[in-house]
């Protein structure tokens, strides 16, 4: 099989995958030893279409200047491109206002930004007060980026970290919701779509309870915004974090969306140029959001690239993307179920789950699975705990093999994976 043999296949919802694949030059690449590339690791990081790559290149070649600070032609062109990327991203997630879109370097920074707003001794807003006796609620299926910032916060402030357990099927167990989220809870931060299980969590029951007790709610949407239409007004949460590199955008750029009144009430996080209104040696006043949270020279070209990524996804259509991935996921779940000794960790059906499927093979360590798949077939999957070690501890396994799909994947690639897994079993059988 060569990569050009990879064809779009019936049953994937009408996306012209062949045309889409042509936009992603890397997919046609041959790996050392003449292996074709079968890229099934988009939950880790997605590939980038030439439209994104060329937008960035073109900006660097002809329009680059620092943003905000410069009056000259290049500065204006860069500022306009950077701020119009903000408009695009605001529209993409249905933000009521463009000022609510804050550029960070990745989703992790976005979550840390919110965590650092709590328990700051200089803060005067009741909603961000945090100390001993107060509680933070996360879940057992979180990515480390939605665990460690809250652990650090709890350690700094003396607050208590609590979490939702996960069921054997890989769903959030909210049977204890009313006890877990209570009058002491200040913030609930939950993943929207799990990067291991594929589970898409239902937000509304948790949000309703958070509202009841006056807690804020944040969603880690790193794995949902790339794969389905997300509308912050519909979701109704207070904060949303996501990351450029998983949504056909560049590295070095992430987004925090937050409600304007909350962002206004939060203390500054990073201090520096561009986030100020006026500075004296002994005190400063701060710029209105989003700039208050964008200290220093931002990832200018990266934000512009993310704007192009959002244009690309919009032109394909997020509903189309979702439908395509759902078809691939159904196909993969069926095909993997037939491999003897293979156990899927996470929901076995396509309801309320995305195109990320993790599994273990009896008696074969995921590292060996991943390496043989890559070495022999050029199949890129991720192996390990996928930055979700507590979730793996929950299932009593050190690691899983994870395959994840995006708009450019095909059922032929899933077939290649299945063939590869059979070979792995032969080698280590």
């Amino acid at each position, binding site marked *: 099989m060569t990569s050009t043999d990879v064809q779009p296949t019936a049953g994937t919802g009408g996306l012209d995958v062949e045309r889409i694949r042509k936009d992603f030059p890397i997919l046609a690449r041959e790996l050392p030893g003449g292996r074709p590339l079968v890229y099934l690791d988009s939950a880790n990081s997605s590939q980038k279409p030439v439209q994104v790559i060329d937008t960035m290149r073109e900006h660097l070649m002809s329009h680059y200047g620092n943003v905000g600070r410069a009056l000259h032609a290049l500065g204006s062109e860069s500022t306009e491109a950077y701020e119009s990327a903000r408009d695009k991203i605001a529209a993409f997630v249905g933000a009521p206002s463009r000022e609510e879109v804050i550029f960070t370097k990745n989703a992790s920074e976005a979550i840390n930004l919110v965590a650092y707003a709590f328990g700051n001794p200089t803060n005067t807003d009741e909603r961000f007060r945090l100390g001993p006796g107060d509680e933070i609620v996360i879940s057992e299926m979180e990515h480390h980026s939605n665990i460690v910032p809250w652990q650090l916060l709890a350690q700094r402030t003396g607050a208590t970290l609590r979490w939702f357990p996960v069921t054997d099927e890989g769903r959030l167990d909210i049977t204890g919701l009313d006890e877990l989220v209570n009058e002491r809870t200040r913030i609930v931060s939950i993943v929207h779509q799990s990067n291991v299980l594929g589970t898409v969590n239902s937000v509304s029951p948790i949000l309703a309870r958070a509202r009841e007790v006056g807690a804020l709610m944040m969603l880690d949407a790193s794995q949902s915004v790339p794969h389905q239409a997300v509308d912050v007004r519909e979701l109704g949460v207070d904060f949303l974090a996501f990351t450029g590199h998983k949504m056909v955008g560049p590295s070095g750029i992430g987004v925090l969306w937050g409600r304007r009144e909350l962002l206004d009430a939060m203390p500054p996080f990073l201090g520096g140029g561009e986030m100020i209104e006026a500075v004296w040696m002994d005190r400063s006043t701060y710029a209105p959001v989003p700039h208050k949270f964008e200290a220093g020279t931002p990832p200018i070209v990266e934000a512009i690239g993310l704007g192009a990524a959002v244009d690309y996804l919009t032109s394909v259509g997020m509903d189309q993307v979702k439908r395509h991935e759902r078809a691939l996921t159904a196909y993969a779940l069926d095909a993997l179920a037939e491999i003897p000794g293979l156990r899927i960790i996470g929901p076995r059906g396509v309801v309320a789950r995305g195109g990320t499927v993790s599994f273990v093979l009896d008696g074969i360590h995921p*590292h060996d699975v991943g390496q043989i798949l890559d070495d022999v077939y050029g199949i890129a999957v991720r192996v390990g*705990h996928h930055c979700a070690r507590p979730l793996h501890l929950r299932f009593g396994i*050190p690691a899983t093999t994870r395959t994840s799909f995006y708009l450019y994947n095909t059922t032929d690639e899933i077939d290649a994976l299945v063939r590869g897994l059979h070979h792995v079993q032969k080698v*280590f059988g």
Partner: protein
Amino acid sequence: MIAESMYQELILEHYKRPQGRGLREPYDAEVHHVNPTCGDEVTLRVKLADGGKVQDVSYDGQGCSISQAAASVLHDLATGSTVEESLAVVDEFTRLMQGRGQVEADEDVLGDAVAFAGVAKFPARVKCALLAWMAYKDAVLRSQEAM
């Protein structure tokens, strides 16, 4: 087919039929090492004998084929040799593993362990290969302290 260079027949052999596996008595020191990033674990015991000899290396653990085979090969090489010889092998093995594939292995020193040369090209797997070997070095040190 780069894999062939890493998954040597000898490694697969040791993985499928590990030598000296299981924890045995008596022992001078027991250590437990974990590779937190991938969850590989090994529990390893060393029993030293008179004349600077290694009487037994016994172990148990879980992990990928590389980490398991490396423990098995270590058992074969260390048991019955002198402490000094075996530590020289550990040093050479470590040098090879950390050489990013640029280091020429000394087969005379390494014996069977030379089969792991291909692993050095995969930085993410080097820790797997070294897990039991580092545990062994640690256990020998503690055994000597205990004596």
